[in-house]
């Protein structure tokens, strides 16, 4: 394949998208420039700030350090795919309620990592949250509220889980 452009199918936020790209394009570039999904930001383009975090099959990756061709046949989820229609993901809602942001540029990536954590481990502790966002850099210093929001969302998730009970 390549070096010239070729057409590739990428599965993004539950939909198959056809993109024209060359092998050197990163997933971040393809999402932002070719698919108009500008929610994913690029802070350093070296995998050092995690602003570009998306999910590949539910795992967090740095999309700026992922070649688009490496995302073939993976389930790609971006920040735009987290909410269900008008309903925010509980972590998104918690970020709103607890002011877990300031300038907001690192926020989409941060939300992706915190949502992945809460979805997988509703019993997460503060140390788990810090580990989950250990690769993220937030220059505005929103970390304290990011921790609060994520733990609150996790707590709510635990409550939802336990309230369902055994005999549903």
């Amino acid at each position, binding site marked *: *394949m390549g070096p010239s452009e070729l057409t590739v199918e990428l599965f993004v936020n539950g939909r198959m998208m056809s993109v024209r790209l060359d092998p050197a394009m990163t997933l971040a570039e393809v999402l932002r420039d070719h698919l108009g999904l500008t929610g994913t930001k690029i802070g350093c383009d070296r*995998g050092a700030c995690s602003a570009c975090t998306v999910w590949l099959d539910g795992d967090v990756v740095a999309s700026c*350090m*992922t070649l688009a061709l490496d995302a073939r046949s993976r389930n790609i989820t971006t920040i735009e795919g987290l909410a269900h229609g008008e309903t925010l993901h509980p972590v998104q809602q918690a970020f709103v309620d607890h002011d877990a942001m300031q300038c907001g540029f690192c926020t989409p990536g941060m939300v992706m990592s915190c949502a992945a954590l809460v979805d997988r481990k509703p019993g997460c502790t503060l140390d788990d949250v810090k580990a989950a966002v250990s690769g993220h850099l937030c220059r505005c210093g929103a970390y304290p509220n990011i921790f609060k929001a994520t733990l609150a969302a996790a707590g709510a998730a635990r409550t939802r889980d336990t309230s369902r009970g055994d005999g549903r």
Partner: protein
Amino acid sequence: MNTFEWVDATSVEQAADLLAARSANGAVVAKAGGIDLLDLMKEGIVRPGRIVNLKSIGGLDGIALGPEGGLTLGALVTLARIESAAEIRGRFPALAAAAAHASTPQVRNVATIGGNLLQRPRCWYFRSQLFHRDGANAGDAISDGENQYHAIFDNRETAMVHASTPATALVAYGAEVQLTAAGGQRRTVPLTDFLLPPDIKRDRDTVLAPGEVLTHVVVPAPAPNTRAAYHKQTERDSYDWPICDVAVVLQMDGETVAAASIVAGWVAPTPRRAVESERVLVGKPLTEELARAAAAAAVAGATPLSKNGYKVALMEAVVRRTIMAAASK
């Protein structure tokens, strides 16, 4: 980054053949997770004409425990899986710890152990294409310049250090790497011989030959009563390159040390076996006093550069503490 030709390799042999050949457009390089490769490409240091994707090769991502308890890791096993695999955490805790502290969660999900061992140095002179130009002299620049994070041993020729922190633990465990060449020949090389002192003039810092593919990392079964610990000393805890990292693997006979493997990373061009320290410990009951003596031996003979003298006392403290941490397991 400039565009390139991309080939999804389907077998090790095919990959090796492709890597042995020259391409019309420029260098042919292998890609696993791509973390180091993309950084080098974005900095303009590597400009491949063709990339051979190894991730499409099946069977290279296994974690297998042998009948005696030795570990075989496929080269494509990610650092995240090494961090979390129960077999590794239980039997090779220093390796699991090293993987867990490498880079960020996002990178660990993608970076492979093979790529991690093959990565080029993180020396900031190396990572600038200015110093790859004809006539540039990174060695002089390092001696005269910002060498805070460079080697304090064996640093006359080169002061760059290998970047891999799992390598520190793997060397302490006596690991070997398995390589397959174009044509199918295989060889096994102890990791400690596989890694070469980094050299900006070469295109690799290992004995991997052009056309060879690193397929597996093999770690011998630890003896019974093995206690191991790993510590990575950094400036920042969130994630950071180490000031130095230390892996200690002790084989105990009651409270006496029967054998010891003490390895420090980021203090010498390749992971350094602190042989003098090991000699201090072997055959004696392990006490704080003994650990202190072993640590002093680990840094004796250090030849720090103008700005990294602080590493000497720091390494001594980390060696001592890691020995004690291993002892308490």
